């Protein structure tokens, strides 16, 4: 799926050459270093990578929630197609503007990894839900209460009326995550950004939450941007995948294609590292470790850890190569595809 195939009426959000840099006394960290992707209406995109790859900053920047003033959008655009295909470039907006505040929670919503951190411990769940609803819709308190109850129903939480009056610490982790999903979806946004929503949950609960997200995505015809380090989650929930490494997208493909044949050596390494598939013997692992964010690398940032690295890889940063409807940023495929 190349970006050019998707015409504007099918796109929901189109990110082009986005770069977000952190300016700290220790230097400049290129947390996001020129990435491009788009999400179609009703489709889901997975962003997979390990710590330090920039996936969380990408998610935050989509709602202009990147930590300013330390982090700055250096370049690039985020074209968001609002209702009636009115297109707006989010990068042009001021981070405190009225427009972005109307978009947040209402048209683009986000759920996080730690539900305990995103729920206010001193407010009842019902109050927190109603706060969001009344922020974006001009309705009365009793109507908002009904909307809140409907949202809790939508996420299949048990005893919703009781939950409305409870505090976050009184319910379990899985339930808190459902509440957070309810808060994100109560205004029926067009795009849900999920940043590692199940990493902190038990496996049995994870399965339920993922199923819930998928069902809701279908029911609400919502787009989904799933950020995770877990390839299993990618396989279950996404149509398209982008693999990130140290601020760049190294491979982009449909989930089917990626699982059938990962092209980039890093992606291949990720697939091989999972202990579940091994019975005995040593695990394949990627040698070395993720470079420090302050290091300036020449050439491909993965080269030091790559079994296939050549001198070209070490001297020149690879360009994005299109190949059979996918994209990969690796010199290995330079002669196969078009640049």
């Amino acid at each position, binding site marked *: 799926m190349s970006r050019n195939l998707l015409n504007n009426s099918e796109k929901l959000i189109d990110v082009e050459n986005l770069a977000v840099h952190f300016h700290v006394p220790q230097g400049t960290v290129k947390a996001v270093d020129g990435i491009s992707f788009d999400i179609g209406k009703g489709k889901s995109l997975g962003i997979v990578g390990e710590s330090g790859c920039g996936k969380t900053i990408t998610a935050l920047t989509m709602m202009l929630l990147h930590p300013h003033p330390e982090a700055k959008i250096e370049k690039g655009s985020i074209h968001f197609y609002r209702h009636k295909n009115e297109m707006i470039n989010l990068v042009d907006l001021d981070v405190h503007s009225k427009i972005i505040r109307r978009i947040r929670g209402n048209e683009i919503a986000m759920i996080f990894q730690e539900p305990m951190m995103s729920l206010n411990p001193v407010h009842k769940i019902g109050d927190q839900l109603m706060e969001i609803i009344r922020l974006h819709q001009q309705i009365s308190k009793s109507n908002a209460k009904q909307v809140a109850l409907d949202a809790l129903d939508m996420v299949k939480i048990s005893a919703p009326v009781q939950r409305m009056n409870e505090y976050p610490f009184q319910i379990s982790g899985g339930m808190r995550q459902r509440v957070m999903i309810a808060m994100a979806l109560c205004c029926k946004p067009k795009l849900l950004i999920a940043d590692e929503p199940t990493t902190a949950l*038990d496996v049995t609960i994870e399965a339920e939450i993922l199923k819930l997200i998928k069902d809701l995505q279908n029911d609400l015809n919502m787009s989904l941007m799933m950020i995770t380090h877990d390839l299993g989650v990618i396989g279950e929930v996404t149509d398209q995948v982008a693999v990130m490494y140290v601020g760049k997208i190294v491979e982009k493909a449909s989930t089917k294609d990626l699982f059938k044949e990962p092209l980039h050596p890093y992606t291949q390494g990720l697939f091989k590292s999972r202990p579940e598939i091994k019975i005995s013997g040593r695990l394949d*692992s990627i040698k070395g470790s993720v470079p420090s964010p302050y290091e300036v690398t020449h050439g491909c940032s993965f080269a030091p850890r790559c079994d296939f690295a050549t001198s070209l890889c070490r001297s020149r940063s690879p360009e994005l190569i299109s190949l059979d409807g996918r994209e990969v940023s690796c010199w290995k495929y330079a002669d196969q595809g078009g640049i």
Partner: protein
Amino acid sequence: MDENNILEVEGLKKFFPNRKGFFNRITSFNKAVNDISLHIKKGETVGLVGESGSGKTTVGRCIVKLFPPTEGSIKYNFNGKSLDISQTPEHQLKDFRKNFQMLFQDVYSSLDPKMKILDIVTEPLAIHNIGTEKERFETACELMTRVGLTPDDLQKYPHQFSGGQRQRIGITRALSIQPKFIVCDEPVSALDVSVQAQILNLLLDLRKDFNLSYLFIAHDLGVVKYFSDRIIVMYLGKIVEVAPAEDIYTRPKHPYTEALLAAISKYKVGSERKILLQGSIPDPSKPPTGCVLQPRCQYAIDACKQTAPDLLPVPNKNDSFVACHRSSELDLKSYSS
């Protein structure tokens, strides 16, 4: 005590009191560990799997006597010297502690941020007054190289290292006094996938080189499969199943094990994990009557609600136990890919 075992735990219970009110009255008990018995053979790696509230972490901490158990015995046997540490007062236990160590899940709080790496990894030696300063330094250098770091790193501080490197430092610290048994409390859960593989490989190599036995605690069956000889599955303070590793994955005997297996991702596009348990984990202070799993189990019958099943040996199988009234009649699926 069986000679082949280095550890025998019997009837272990650990209850945490819940206190309320001005006078801190005890209102109920969080029965974190509720009658656990297990053994570990010399050179064996036993995987202990459970989700939140299962009590697996508490078992790990009781085994290294981080706090005294409410009830039960914890008997170790190292090279002919055996000791029931549950009854031993702390000052008599100090010397025996050289035999076991622990690895921690949270790599960011397991190293003292104010201490140099050299001091961190030689602290167990310093506590037991082993070796001169020079000898300790040399041991530290050797071990650091062995785990994949360098002797220069000894002069640095924890904040200069990544998650995977910190866990290696934790391993160095554990190995410094040459223990025979290490409790690994979810040592790779907080690390990146590619780093997990490195650390697991390292632990495997070290097991061979140093003749170690491990208790490997994990929250899902994915990681332990690769690593364990036998697996113990826990739920809400109780052991529900024990079996050799291959059997757990191919022929689970307990509904909870089946549910855990179903919850492992298949890494297939478009696949869905089967959800076999309803509801959520109950409050450990108010465990269900009868079998701990019965409110959530699709196979539950009346007997399950009335009496708690004992952990009984599985007929015709070695080293296999299950706590389920219906284990002989249920045909559970393995869900393995």
